[in-house]
């Protein structure tokens, strides 16, 4: 499921970051939906990798199939004019808001 940028335009920004899933239930239904919804707000091509698989952040099927659980680290890479904004928005969702979900009990 390698994604390829369709047009290699001149000024293409590339941003990458690593995010850790911290909510207890991992990237299950609702978090996956939130993740995909945010990714879809941007024009950039966004890919997510768990080290083994590289998937399209805008596809709920592909994101779900990463089967990311609490503690999984994901590499997010955005390419395009709004790449920085996209990565920031996803970081906010995953690492700051934790999908508005509970964290694991201590």
């Amino acid at each position, binding site marked *: 499921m390698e994604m390829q940028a369709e047009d290699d335009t001149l000024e293409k920004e590339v941003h990458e970051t690593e995010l850790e899933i911290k909510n207890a239930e991992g*990237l299950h239904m609702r978090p*996956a939906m939130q993740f995909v*919804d945010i990714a879809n707000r941007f024009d950039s091509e966004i890919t997510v990798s768990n080290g083994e698989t590289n998937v399209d952040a805008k596809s*709920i099927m*592909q994101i*779900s*199939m990463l089967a990311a659980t609490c503690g999984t680290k994901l590499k997010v890479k955005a390419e395009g004019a709004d790449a920085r904004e996209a990565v920031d928005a996803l970081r906010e969702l995953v690492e700051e808001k934790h999908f508005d979900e509970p964290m694991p009990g201590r």
Partner: protein
Amino acid sequence: MEIKKGIAVSPGISIAKSLIIDSEDYRIPRRQIEPSQRLTEIQRVRNAFKDAGGELARLEAASDHAEGSKIKDIFAVHLRYLRDRSLRKKVTDLVHTEFVTAEYAVSTVLRDIAAHFKKQDDAYISERAADIYDIERRLLKQLLGRKREDVGHLTEEVVVVARELSPTQTAGFDRKFVKGIASDAGGRTSHAAIVARSLGIPAVVALEDLTEYVLGGDTVIVDGNRGIVIVNPDDQTIRQYEEYSREFIELEHRLDAIRREPAVTRDGTEVTLLGNIEFPDEAEIVLQKGGDGIGLYRTEFLYLNTDREPTEQDHYEAYAKTVRVLAGKPIIIRTMDLGADKYTQSKRFAPEPNPFLGLRSIRFCLQNLTMFKKQLRAILRVSVLGDVKIMFPLITNRQELMQAKMILYDVMEDLHEESIPCNRDIDMGIMIETPSAALTAFSLARDVDFFSIGTNDLTQYTLAVDRGNELVSTLYSPADPAVLRLIRTVIQDAHKAQIKLGVCGEMASEPEHVMLLLGLGVRTLSLTSPMIPEIKQMIRSVTIRDCNEVARKVLSMDSERHISSYLRNAARKVLPEAF
């Protein structure tokens, strides 16, 4: 055009668009398409995603915030799957590269995804497989016909096509719109077949792989007389069948005219024609068709229809309703005949390797006395409402009969002590449907009021043939000399003991066997109600003298093939339009 041969289980002809029903765990069969069809199939995939998405969006909008946002969340997530282009592309790619139907591609791709989730250790993720199945079903519903799950609310005539139908599904069919039934699995005696017959819907079963050849909306001809199903017939075939169907309906109308006439031979011998029924509602149909009462009231439906075991009151209400419809005409209630089926198999830790030779029918009852007594109490309680008789199935030896009788008397005592009225002289009989019962009929006859020969099981057990198994089903014939000898023995022993005797197996509803049975001395036939007029017509067309001659000849023959062709010829001479 594709012609498939199966087993005809309910007579009549129907031509209509197909409606495909499948059970949840059923895999859509792989069906190849021509390269030129790919674009059409890909468009079908796209439309299915779009329409399923539309349906979900409406559901999501309609679901109230207040009643738990969880449901709304689920719809929202499913909607995103349906709008996921990469998912859709996976499906269309499969159509494109593998030349398969839209249904197969949808099912394969989504089940792959579900399997991927299922093997994850994390429960939150593995449980998502159920969501994927749900999405698959939603897409298949679009592809297989819009009203697929809505058989109860049909608006146009259809032929129902399925891998297998449960009796519950079949019983729910709207006779006005369901014009025919065709299924891959099933046999002549499967419950779905019995229900189809009693509803008068033409049906063909055991078509093996029919579902691989039919798409929702294809035109399908069901020939319930000859056991043929034709998919996408050409114009000429349709015309032929329309003609054939008209003739068949004309015959039915002509038969209607003799409904009120007695079933009496030309030389004055009276025959009693009774109906076989499954549900209380059918009692009315038996009377409409000119039946003199009910010779076999199957009670299994009470057990198959609900998730819980029926209560005594459930039994009582169903029986009372039926008995009241009959208004004094006789009715034989057969005790529970379950065993080689889901109900009892699912209650078992290990399914039996050989259910037809296992714990079924009366054997099951004798080992589950609480359940058995519930039914007996209900039967005895309705015995005061009409001419009710009780019948035990699958008796194989005298000891079983004595046990069953003893339990019946116990229940009578209980009722007596509770001052609940019942007919203590209720007629009690048994089905003769095993070779052992037939061979010991002389002894069993001493302890019962009547015999009823169940030719289906008797044939199956005598010839060691499962007729649902198409590899050997041609060996199945009640006209086999071995079966006929047993039947003759039973009839003679019943006459000697001066007890009543009837035939309630399928043989009684087959026009070609009427002369033989009358010639062997049978005077009571119990059969599926749609066949009553035709059998009555047959009886009214023969003389007992001719029947005796037929029986004498047949008993001297030593091959099933000769017997069958002789019987068909003899019957055709008497009533050519029935063949």
